[in-house]
């Protein structure tokens, strides 16, 4: 029983950390540029596809991830400078329209280049088996994900809390006008933030690709969860994104693991297995609504 709980806890941690990678970029863009970016999930999709292509070309998973990151940094920076920059001063409606359009364009472009069928992305050979942890076998690859997720979280912390660039980012999240007034090159900062977000999405996409499927439209489902995370955590706060992501990841895994078992005693297997994940999802959104109602700034408000 303890073993089951530990294994599920690790699963929740793994999912939560990947959500964090997506949420971190999104929260910065939303918090600092006040921009609703619906196409954030498409950056994640782009990362997965580039990783698959790079792995096929080079045969190395590590190079695949790096290739995806490099590629998406370029894509992200270009997207920001050429398209998104025009919409910072516009109202949220215009941003919704524009970024919704970008989702359509991204999905179709990927379909044109790679076709409608999912693309193969495999975990590295060395990590496709189990390792012994806490007395049971756990997939090595998922441990890698956890490791990378924690590493990136640590890097982000150092970047944001300990460097000058990080200070500008925090200042921008707290008060954009003041930051501008203080002489920070805000346009370049914004491009950098967006590119960073794209890089984080690329890592998440590349890492999750082998577990899920690299397919058109893979960004939309995870994007909505990322929005939930940043609302719970606090728009503009990376610490909030981490806490929110772990919370959401935990509840989601709980819903898929524990709830069906609990519900089985009340209803048939089929009904319980349908109800469990649905209830878990409802719980996540209820949590989001509750936070919005009582603490609209989230658990860790970034704005001063």
């Amino acid at each position, binding site marked *: *029983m303890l*073993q*089951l709980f530990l*294994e*599920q806890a690790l*699963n929740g941690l*793994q*999912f939560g950390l990947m959500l964090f990678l997506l949420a971190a970029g999104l929260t910065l863009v939303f918090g600092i540029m006040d921009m609703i970016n619906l196409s954030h999930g498409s950056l994640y999709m782009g990362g997965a596809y580039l990783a698959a292509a790079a792995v096929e070309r080079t045969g190395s998973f590590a190079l695949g991830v790096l290739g995806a990151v490099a590629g998406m940094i370029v894509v992200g920076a270009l997207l920001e400078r050429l398209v998104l920059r025009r919409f910072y001063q516009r109202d949220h409606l215009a941003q919704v329209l524009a970024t919704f359009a970008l989702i359509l364009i991204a999905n179709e472009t990927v*379909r044109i280049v790679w076709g*409608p*069928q*999912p693309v*193969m992305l*495999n*975990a590295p050979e060395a990590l*496709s*088996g*189990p390792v012994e942890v806490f007395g*049971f*076998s*756990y*997939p*090595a*690859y*998922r441990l890698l994900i956890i490791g990378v997720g924690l590493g990136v979280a640590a890097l982000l912390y150092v970047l944001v809390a300990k460097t000058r660039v990080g200070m500008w980012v925090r200042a921008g999240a707290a008060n954009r006008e003041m930051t501008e007034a203080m002489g920070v090159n805000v346009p370049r900062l914004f491009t950098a933030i967006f590119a960073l977000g794209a890089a984080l999405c690329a890592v998440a996409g590349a890492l999750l690709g*082998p*577990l*899920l*499927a690299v*397919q*058109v*439209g893979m960004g939309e489902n995870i994007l909505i969860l990322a929005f939930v995370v940043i609302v719970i955590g606090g728009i503009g706060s990376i610490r909030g994104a981490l806490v929110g992501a772990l919370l959401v990841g935990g509840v989601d*895994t709980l819903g*898929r*693991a524990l709830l069906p*078992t609990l519900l089985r005693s009340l209803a048939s*297997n*089929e009904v319980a*297995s*349908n109800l469990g*994940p649905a209830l878990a999802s409802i719980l996540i959104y209820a949590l989001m609504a509750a936070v919005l109602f009582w603490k609209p700034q989230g658990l860790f408000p970034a704005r001063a």
Partner: protein
Amino acid sequence: MHNALRAAALAACLAALPALAADKVKVGFVSTLSGPGAGLGVDIRDGFQLAMKHLGGKLGGLPAEVIVADDQQSPDTTKQVADRFVKKDKVDFMTGIVFSNLMLAVGKPVFDSKTFYISANAGPSQLAGADCNPFFFNVAWQNDNLHEAVGKYVQDQGLKNVILVAPNYPGGKDAMTGFKRFYKGHVADEIYTKLGQLDYAAELAQVRAAKPDALFFFLPGGMGINFVKQFVAAGLSKDVRLFAPGFSADEDVIKAVGAPMLGLFNSSHWAHDLDNAQNKRFVTDFRKEYGRTPSLYASQGYDAALLMDAAVRDSKGRLDDKAAVRKALEAAKFQSVRGAFRFNANHYPVQDYYLRLIRTDAEGRVTNKLMGTIFSKHADAYVGECKMK
């Protein structure tokens, strides 16, 4: 746009006349061509297209127009496509749907429009029993069948403690029912996953905790690929024997997963090494045309076209005479790649089911080998409930 106009006008004229031979056959092919289930739809389509090539682009001697559409594995899209096929393109035959939930979503309107649906895959129990319909024919199998065969095999192997995994949709439910019809041992757990789910970490943890002897899983397409990969990654392949119907153990999954599939016993109504002339030609030409070994899905697509060909031929092209076409379909006088073929009273096949094993063949490829027969001339369990004459 103008072709459709002309065709519609022509069809209108033809409908007004007494049943004369049509001058062409229209087939509406709708299948899952995107998303994790795409491998199946693409295979069915490729098998169908190969048959059309072998038939010279004709069905029953008449030139054939095949309209291909993607259902995106969504009931809304499937419905819209079916609507278009029936109302705009006015097709004579429809085929291609992979997933039973989609089949059930569009069944009634298609049948009500008196369009013949030749299923090259989806074989829900509902349409085999109480809801059987004169306009529905399934050239593949009834959903339960392949799972029944695995159930019998696992029972005969004497395995005592089994966990079942299937997606929560009509096909998955039929799978569990079918397996349990012939497996009489202890079912430790029945795990229903979400259709389209790709991450099985939670379910695999449950499996580990339950410590079964064997695990039977039905997860077609991308779902199965991910499941097997994650099953092996979790280290469960050491302690738990894996069994599956042919759906989760055919070329599409083998190509994606590779060596970890070796040693998997599975059931099927068809094998690429079945020894008959039609099958040899099919497999050889499929490999030449598409550069891969056909899966059972491709064989079904191929047979669907051959069935349509026989139906048009035997009804002398009088496609408006629905009774004649139905009779021709029921007679099913075509050479299936399975060998002999015949329909039961509910328009589902009566056929043999085989045991296959995934091994490395003489050329070093990881692929299925035909091992033996599990069921001979096996009918589905629902034919008794069908009230069709």
